[in-house]
C-alpha cells in the first residue's frame, strides 16, 4: 500500500490533466445542442475536412515510410560499415536534429525550402537546376521533409542501439560466407530489430499527427493537416464540437498505430 501512496500524486496528475480532458473530448464530440447523443459534428467534420483528413494521413504515412528507410539505412551502415572513419563521421552527423523542437524545424525549413532558399541556390549553383525552374517546396513536400529531418534521427538512435546489442557472431558468419552487406542487413539484422523499428515508427507517427507548428508554418492553406483545422475551428469559430470530432478522428488513426505499440510494449514487459 505504501507503493500506491507514492505513485498516487503522479497518477492524479495524469488522470486530471490527461484522462479527464480526453473524456471531455469524447463528450463534446458526441453531444448535440439539446444535450443528446449525436453524430452531426462528425458529419460536419467529414463534410468540411475530408480532403484534409486524407491529406494528413497521406503525409504522415509517407513521412513514416521515409523515416523508416532513412533510419534503417543509417543504423545499418553504423552497424555494418567497414570504414571506421566514415562510421564515426556518420555517427556524429546524424543526431544533430534529435532535440531540435518542431517549431524551430518549421522555421528552419521555411527558409531552406523557400523559392529563394539555400536548397534552390545550391542546386542552381551546382548546375542541377535551371534558375527559372526553381520552385518553392513549401507545400506538402515541405511538411514531409521537415518531419523526416526531425524524426529520422530519433528512430535511428533507437534502431542503431538495438542493432549494436545484437550477437555479432551471426553477422560475421554471414559476411565470411560472402553475403553482401545489404543482404546481411535485410536477412539477418533487420528481422531481429523489427520490434524496435516498429516502436520508433509508431511513436513518430503519433507525434507527427499532433504537431501543429510545422504545418501551420510551412503549409497553412487548404489542403492542410487536421491540427491546423482544429486550431482554426477553435480560434475563429469557438467551435469545440467539430474541433473535438476532428481530434477524435485523428485519435482513431493514432489508435491503430498505438495499438501496435502498446501490444509490443506489453509483450516486452512480460518477457523482460
Amino acid at each position, binding site marked *: 500500500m505504501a507503493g500506491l501512496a507514492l505513485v498516487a500524486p503522479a497518477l492524479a496528475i495524469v488522470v486530471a490533466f490527461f484522462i479527464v480532458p480526453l473524456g471531455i*473530448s469524447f463528450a463534446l464530440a458526441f453531444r448535440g445542442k439539446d444535450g443528446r447523443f449525436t453524430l452531426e459534428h462528425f458529419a460536419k467534420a467529414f463534410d468540411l475536412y475530408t480532403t484534409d483528413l486524407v491529406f494528413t494521413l497521406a503525409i504522415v504515412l509517407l513521412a513514416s515510410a521515409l523515416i523508416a528507410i532513412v533510419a534503417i539505412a543509417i543504423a545499418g551502415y553504423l552497424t555494418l560499415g567497414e*570504414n571506421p572513419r566514415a562510421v564515426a563521421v556518420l555517427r556524429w552527423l*546524424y543526431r544533430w536534429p534529435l532535440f531540435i*523542437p518542431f517549431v524551430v524545424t518549421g522555421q528552419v525549413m521555411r527558409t531552406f525550402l523557400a523559392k529563394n532558399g539555400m536548397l534552390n*541556390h545550391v542546386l542552381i549553383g551546382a548546375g542541377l537546376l535551371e534558375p527559372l525552374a526553381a520552385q518553392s517546396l513549401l507545400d506538402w513536400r515541405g511538411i514531409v521533409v521537415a518531419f523526416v529531418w526531425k524524426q529520422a534521427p530519433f528512430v535511428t538512435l533507437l534502431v542503431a542501439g538495438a542493432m549494436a546489442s545484437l550477437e555479432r557472431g551471426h553477422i560475421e558468419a554471414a559476411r565470411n560466407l560472402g553475403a553482401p552487406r545489404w543482404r546481411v542487413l535485410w536477412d539477418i539484422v533487420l528481422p531481429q530489430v523489427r520490434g524496435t523499428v516498429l516502436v520508433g515508427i509508431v511513436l513518430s507517427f503519433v507525434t507527427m499527427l499532433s504537431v501543429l507548428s510545422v504545418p501551420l508554418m510551412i503549409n497553412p492553406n487548404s489542403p492542410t493537416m487536421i491540427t491546423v483545422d482544429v486550431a482554426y475551428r477553435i480560434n475563429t469559430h469557438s467551435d*469545440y464540437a467539430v474541433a473535438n470530432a476532428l481530434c477524435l478522428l485523428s*485519435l482513431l488513426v493514432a489508435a491503430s498505430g498505438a495499438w501496435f505499440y502498446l501490444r509490443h510494449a506489453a509483450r516486452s*514487459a512480460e518477457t523482460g
Partner: protein
Amino acid sequence: MATSLRWPRLLLTALLLALFAFAIFGPLANLLLWAFAEKWYFPSKLPSEFGFAFWRRVFNPRGNALASLGTSVWIAVLTVVVSLAVAIPAGYALARLRLPWRSAILLLFLLPQAVPNLPIYVNIARVFYEVGLNGTVTGVVLVHAAHGLVLAVWIASAAFAAVDASLDEAARNLGATPWTCFRTITLPLAAPGLMASAIFVFLESLDEFTGTYFVGVPDVTTLPLLMFNASMGGNYQIASITALLLLVPSIGFMLVVERFLKADVLAMVGR
C-alpha cells in the same frame, strides 16, 4: 581487383557523407544566415549586408524577447520541480516496491506519449478558461508537467531499477531506516539518471509549443511562441535569432546526453 575497387568506393562514401552533411547542416546554415542578415533582397543568393542590428533589438532590455526567455526558463524550472517531485516517489515505487496492477500503472504512464496531444490541450484550455487558469504561468506549468511527468517516471523508474538492491539490504541489516537507505544510498546512485530525466523535462518544457499556444494565450508568451509570431509576421531575422536561442540548449544536450543516460539505465527503461 580489391585495389581497383577501393578508390571509387571511397569516393562514393565521401560523396554520400557530404550530401548527408548538407542535408543536416544546410537548413541550419540557412538559419544562421538569416540571423545575421541585415538586408537580404530577392533573388540574391546571400544577404547584401550582415550585422547585429536585429540582435540588439532582440537583446534590448525593454524588448519582449528577453522577457519571453525569462518566462520560458521560469516555466521550465517550475515544470522540472513539479514533475520530479511526483516522478521520483512514483519511479521508486515502480522499481522497488510490490505494487498491485503494476503493468496497468506503467501503461497509464505510457498513454500520454502514445496518443496525440491536441485534444488534451484543446479541452484543458477550455476548462482552464472557466476557472481562470488560462493565460497564467501556473496553467502552462501544469500542462507541461502532465506531459513531462510521463518521461520522468519512466526514466526515474529505470534509474532506480539499475541501482543494486543488495546495497540497500545490507544497510537495512545494519539497522538503517528505509528513509536513511533511500537518502544516503539509492538516491545518490540513481542521481545521474534522475539528472537526465530533469534535463529531458526541462527541454520539453522549454521547446513546447502546442500546449502553450492554447493554454498560454494571451498573456504567457514563451520563446517558441515569440519565434512563431515573429516568423508568421514575416520578420525572419527576429525569428531566426530566437530559433538560435532555442537551438543552443537542444544541441548542447544532444552532445552530452550519453554522459547522463548510461546504457545500464537505458536497458531498464520500461522494465
